[in-house]
């Protein structure tokens, strides 16, 4: 209870001071003390009461009533009773809006718009019975609401909705984020926009309002609707400066341009914000997809390895046993029928063995498990008989931070298979005399395979070269796959010009998994 009282008194003081200052500023604006109350102070009360618990409303409304009554007495304006009535009449409306004012940003902004219009209508009913015209009251209330209420929301969501890390000495270890460039840029923007409003010569004066859009768009693009709101506030300062400086704009014109630019700013900002939110969602989905496909590749590889091991261990041993049994049978059985059967069994089991072996190689390069990646690549070059085909092969390993044994299984298998496919192609089609394989292990794994062969046409790129599957797999793992080839005709040209950049170059970048 004591806590509540003290907090109420503190907020009462804070609000009274802000209310008073805003009233003075509004008064300067429209030179009409009664409308000045409707302009900023009412909007402040509306914005604050929307964002505070109802328990503190006595303090909020108390500040307003106290100041209205004292100013009415001070300036001898008894008809300000109507202002007080408008303030009291707004309580049920704000009460209702307060209940709806939850959930998404979009919904909150809609509620704010609704409550601004509703209270403006109330003001019209209460106040235009005496003195000021109906339209003026409406315009003043809406302008003030558009400028102040979203600002209250901004301050509330920035200061009160985030949890603050307490300020302690260990802040020291954090770097300061002081974006000098941004501050410089926005200061220039602000100064230019004021200069634009004040300094344009009379012939160009009618373009001045269009210039207001520039800071709004820039800020909205960078920071969403919050930025747009900031832009409109800066614009308001520029407009006010312009009015007190050179242009003798009518009050209605000023108010109209203020509310129009606030409205466009906020709407534009919301639009951009929505697009950005969608973009962020899309990016998230994309990265999730990539993650999934990476998982898929890994899972496939581990299943393959398991099956290969099973096949190798179980079927291999069994077939060996069958063959041994068959040869025993051949020796023991003397009848020709028996011998034929035994030969048949041996032959069939050999068939099974060969099929299994072929399957095994397709499933899982066994040399990779037995020898490791480096040796397996050497073995691959030997198996494909590159030397016999007249291809001088070089394998270069650039390993600084770690070596190939530390790579994950999926990476190793992918690298091995790419080498396999690429070397097959080189041996079969490229008619090359030199081949270089370069492995670089840094933050990512890079592999480049370059030959000096005849190359292929760009339209044949990946067509039927068995590399298409590899490309998909690399992309699924989040890597890059690039294949450049200097084609036959081009080759002759480059050969004539003496350049040695002929042949095919395949480069692959895989992230460390």
């Amino acid at each position, binding site marked *: 209870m004591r*806590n509540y009282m*003290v*907090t109420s008194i*503190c907020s009462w*003081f*804070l609000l009274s*001071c*802000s209310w*008073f*200052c*805003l009233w*003075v*500023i509004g*008064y*300067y604006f429209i*030179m009409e003390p009664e409308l000045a109350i409707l302009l900023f102070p009412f909007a402040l009360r509306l914005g604050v009461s929307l964002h505070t618990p109802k328990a503190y409303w006595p303090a909020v409304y108390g500040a307003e009533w106290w100041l209205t009554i004292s100013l009415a007495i*001070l300036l001898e304006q008894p008809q300000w009773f109507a202002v007080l009535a408008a303030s009291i009449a707004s309580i049920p409306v704000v009460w209702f809006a307060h209940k709806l004012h939850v959930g998404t940003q979009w919904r909150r902004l809609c509620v704010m718009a609704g409550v601004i219009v509703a209270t403006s209508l109330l003001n019209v009913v209460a106040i235009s019975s005496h003195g000021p015209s109906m339209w003026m009251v409406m315009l003043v209330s809406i302008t003030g609401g558009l400028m102040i209420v979203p600002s209250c929301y901004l*301050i509330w969501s920035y*200061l*009160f909705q*985030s*949890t*603050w*890390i*307490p*300020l*302690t*000495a*260990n*802040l*020291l*270890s*954090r*770097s*300061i*984020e*002081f974006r000098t460039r941004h*501050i410089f840029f926005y200061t220039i923007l602000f100064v230019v926009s004021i200069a634009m409003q004040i300094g344009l010569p009379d012939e160009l004066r009618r373009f001045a309002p269009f210039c207001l859009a520039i800071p709004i768009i820039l800020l909205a693009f960078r920071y969403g609707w919050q930025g747009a709101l900031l832009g409109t506030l800066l614009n308001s300062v520029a407009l006010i400066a312009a009015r007190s400086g050179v242009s003798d704009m009518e009050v209605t014109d000023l108010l109209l341009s203020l509310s129009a630019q606030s409205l466009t700013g906020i709407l534009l900002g919301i639009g951009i914000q929505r697009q950005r939110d969608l973009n962020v969602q899309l990016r998230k989905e994309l990265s999730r997809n990539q993650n999934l496909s990476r998982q898929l590749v890994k899972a496939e590889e581990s299943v393959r390895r398991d099956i290969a091991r099973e096949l190798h261990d179980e079927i291999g041993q069994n077939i060996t046993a069958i063959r041994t049994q068959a040869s025993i049978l051949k020796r023991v059985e003397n009848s020709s029928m028996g011998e034929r059967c035994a030969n048949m069994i041996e032959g069939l089991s050999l068939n099974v063995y060969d099929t299994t072996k072929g399957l095994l190689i397709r499933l899982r390069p066994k040399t990779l498990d037995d020898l490791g990646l480096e040796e397996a690549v050497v073995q691959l070059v030997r198996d494909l008989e590159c030397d016999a085909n007249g291809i001088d092969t070089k394998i270069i390993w650039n390993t600084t931070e770690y070596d190939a044994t530390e790579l994950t299984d999926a990476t190793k298998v992918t690298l091995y298979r790419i080498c396999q496919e690429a070397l097959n192609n080189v041996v079969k089609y490229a008619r090359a005399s030199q081949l270089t394989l370069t492995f670089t292990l840094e933050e990512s794994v890079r592999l480049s395979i370059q030959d000096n062969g005849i190359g292929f046409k760009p339209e044949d790129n990946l067509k039927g070269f068995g590399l298409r599957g590899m490309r998909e797999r690399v992309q699924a793992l989040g890597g890059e796959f690039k294949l450049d080839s200097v084609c036959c005709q081009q080759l002759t040209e480059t050969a004539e010009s003496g350049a040695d950049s002929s042949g095919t170059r395949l480069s692959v970048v895989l992230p460390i998994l």
Partner: protein
Amino acid sequence: MFGFIKSQPSYKADLSAAEVKARYQHWRFHIMFTMYVGYAVFYFTRKSFNYAMPAMIADLGLDKADIGMIGTLFYISYGVSKFLSGIISDRSNPRYFMGLGLIATGLINILFGLSSSIVMFTALWILNAWFQGWGWPSCSKLLTTWYSRSERGFWWALWNTAHNVGGALIPLIVGYLTLNYSWRHGFIIPGGLAVFVGLFLCWRLRDKPTTMGLPTVGHWRSDKLELAQENEGVGLSSQEILAKYVLSNKYIWLLAFSYVLVYIVRTAVNDWGNLYLTEQHGYDLITANGALSLFEFGGFVGSLVAGWGSDKLFGGNRGPMNLIFAIGIFMSVAALWLMPITGFVLQAGAFFAIGFFVFGPQMLIGMAAAECSHKDSAGAATGFVGLFAYMGAALAGYPLALVMQDYHWTGFFVVISAASAVVGLLLLPFLQAQSPTVTGNGA
């Protein structure tokens, strides 16, 4: 000879929880009361010159430029002294440090009242500035060791109102004395009061709780944040602490720069306010000073609100509250500037609002400086930002007068509105550092 000024080593006495509680409660109350009285009287001996000045001009025929020069020199040497004595006070016993400082300023004021030459005045007033600087670091040391993080906003705010009480009483006292006796009495009597209160401070103040055998305040109140700060950088030497937590602490620098701007606004409004009212709105001097006294009153309320708000609304975080008050400074300065009609209540209201919003950051920035540095460098950290504050105060003197010569009151208000807008901007990186979104990329 001065060994007793040095802070005594800590020890741990065997006390029951009830005894610890009783002692803490007793001393927290008495230390607050004593500091409050002491600091208000520091204000008496600091501001006596400002208010006796018109009579001195009439009596001795002093030049205005000389007086402006004395004021500027006072601000600069006061700032420097705040920093240097801040460093010293971290290792000394605030009981004697603050008490002796107050006695010294009292004696200097008495001497000032007895002299008549401008050279003497300047020398004495610079010396006075030096001893004036002994008050605030001692208080910040006491405030950071006797009161813990989650409640400090309120206690510090309470103490901070001593500024306003002292600032509001001294014109009355000096005005009364000059009117009825002479300006010399306007120095001698506050000086005598200061000597008397200084003795009282030496009698009633105490050192840190740990030097009295008590546990630290963080332990006593089991305040997590307080404990974290107490355990920060244990075992460093005082030079290392000073270098690491104050001089190379980027956040202290940031606070220092925004403090410069806050003090430009504060000093500009305080020192030029009555001139503005008399020139622009045609007030007589008494009414103008009356409106200006609302500035101190607003400051009184504002510091309490800011302290309480930062404790309760933001759980001991000074940044967000600072930003709200920075926006308020801008608004209230604009209100005073743009006020379209003349009326005592309206202008006084604007001064109240400026005081309200200026004294929030005036207090919170000092507190934040103490809290984002080491426990044993609280005095040096607050002294360091204080040094910058009084650079700002010096800027609001002669340089601002030059601006006004060329651009009149519009120039004056453009400068202080721009200063108040930048206060908010400088505080933003602070909030950025405190917001949890950047937790990951702190390096």
